[in-house]
């Protein structure tokens, strides 16, 4: 999988649409057999795609022989977790598919604040840390004059967001220890 295929919204759209066509039917069949509803199948498939996306862009991406089988595997795992959490919908944030330590959920207030006050920074950080785009791609996408400026901007944004998180943590215990 060529990561550059996923650097823009349009490219990601095509990627996700293809996965829907490829694997949604077997996932829906599984959920139906387990007694779930079509809405549950859709929710599970959405979370499956998020996890798969994270896998594909991650540094330790491996070669996946059958995308369909892989996606069905993730969906089954999610369904079983969903099932264990009884009828309550477990949000994706609580699932820890990656072995990244320290995933405390941030309070909604911080996210809300950052979405409004710091959207540009958040989008830049999203491209670097989540989409894991190379500095050259980030430079072009965000219109920086060169990779050096893009990198400087990244650290400035990280500092800004860190400061926001700090202020919010000082106000209240926003993070669960």
């Amino acid at each position: 999988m060529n990561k550059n295929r996923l650097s823009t919204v349009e490219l990601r759209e095509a990627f996700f649409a293809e996965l829907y066509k490829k694997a949604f039917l077997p996932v829906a069949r599984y959920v139906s057999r387990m007694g779930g509803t079509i809405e549950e199948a859709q929710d599970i498939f959405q979370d499956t795609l998020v996890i798969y996306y994270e896998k594909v862009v991650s540094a330790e991406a491996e070669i996946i022989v059958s995308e369909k089988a892989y996606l069905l595997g993730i969906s089954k795992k999610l369904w079983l977790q969903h099932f264990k959490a009884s009828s309550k919908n477990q949000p994706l944030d609580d699932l820890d598919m990656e072995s990244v330590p320290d995933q405390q959920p941030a309070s909604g207030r911080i996210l809300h604040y950052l979405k409004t006050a710091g959207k540009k920074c958040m989008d830049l950080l999203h491209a670097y840390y989540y989409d894991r785009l190379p500095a050259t791609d980030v430079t072009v996408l965000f219109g920086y004059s060169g990779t050096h400026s893009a990198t400087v901007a990244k650290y400035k944004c990280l500092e800004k967001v860190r400061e926001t998180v700090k202020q919010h943590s000082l106000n209240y215990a926003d993070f669960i220890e």
Partner: protein
Amino acid sequence: MNDIKTIEDYLLGHLSDDDALLFEANMILNSDLADDIKLQQNTYAVIRQYSRQKIKAEITAVQEKLLIAPENQNFLQRIANLFKKD
């Protein structure tokens, strides 16, 4: 600024063994540094949550588009049939 980069390099495992050792010794001696590291980890967690919400919104948009496309109606009917109660 340097501090934020060094913490990132440490957290992402980009420091050499010697530098990492030195950094960890610093962490023990300097409680402000330890606090900053914790804070920075929380910052990455916030970025991840923000990003997940965003990518999920993109996926939802794709799903909605597929649902209304005429060429997909057969496919969608097959899926709907799976959930028919008879």
